[in-house]
């Protein structure tokens, strides 16, 4: 069943991670930037599962579980922060939130 070489899975994960980086740098909506961060975390999960298969143990899959918990907490807190910002400034554009900018 698992006859595809692990390198191709790692390449897919790397390409998805790079797309996530580009999206987080290019887009301007805070929620969309969060979605690209989730895409990066997903790509890292694929890498963990692939390394778990390469090494022949389930430890990598447990790290995926931890990444999942951190991603859930991060998404919840981040979306609440975005909600508060939108309530005060009526905009989800990250360029409008420049109070701490030098």
């Amino acid at each position, binding site marked *: *069943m698992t*006859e*595809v*070489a*692990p*390198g*191709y*899975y*790692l*390449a897919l994960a*790397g*390409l*998805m*991670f*790079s*797309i*996530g*980086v*580009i*999206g987080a*740098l*290019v*887009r*301007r909506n805070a*929620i*969309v930037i*969060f*979605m690209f961060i*989730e*895409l990066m975390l*997903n790509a890292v*999960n*694929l890498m963990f*599962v692939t390394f*778990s*298969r*390469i*090494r*022949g*143990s*389930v*430890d990598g899959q*447990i790290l995926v*579980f*931890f990444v*999942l*918990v*951190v*991603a*859930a*907490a991060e998404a919840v*807190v981040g*979306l*609440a*922060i*975005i*909600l508060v910002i939108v309530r005060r400034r009526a905009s*989800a*554009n990250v*360029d409008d939130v420049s109070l701490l900018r030098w």
Partner: protein
Amino acid sequence: MIALIVFGAVFVFALGCSIAMLFAKNAVHTALFLVGSQVALAVAFLLQGAHFVAAVQIIIYAGAIMVLFLFVVMLLGVDRSEVLVEPLPAQRQVALGLGTLLAAGITYIALTSVDLIGADRTQALAAINRDPGNVLAVARTLFSRYLLGFEATSVLLVTAIVGVMVLARRVDSVTSLSASTPSSEEREVA
């Protein structure tokens, strides 16, 4: 052979959804493309024998977290279009160039040097999945070697819940809460 065909479909679908995320103007469309790539990744997990993680990926990521994202998008207004004017000069070009460089680097490393890790142990995971089963093996490892980390995630989740409740409440409820706090203290003293 079947695994190769399925992997090809997963590769095309996941990358296509990810690239479509970059060009989707509407935030809801971006979220839906993200769900598509996550489902494709769940199939990739299944192909590699990570059954528990694949199920959790569908239930938590594509289910719970993306519903939360869509909920917040709806709450903030769907029809609000994203500002596409780029204030920094050459930001997009530089981001695209450096991202392409990163992709090329990771792909090169993945395709060339992965054999150094010892890819002949890939049958060990299949043996684990056969004998105690994937879910049982994950549970045994999680509740023995990673028990402390597992308990720490519960602390993290409680902290996140409390933080979100503090962040998301309205300002007028803050004033009423602080006004009612001394009276409850007085009640306890009395």
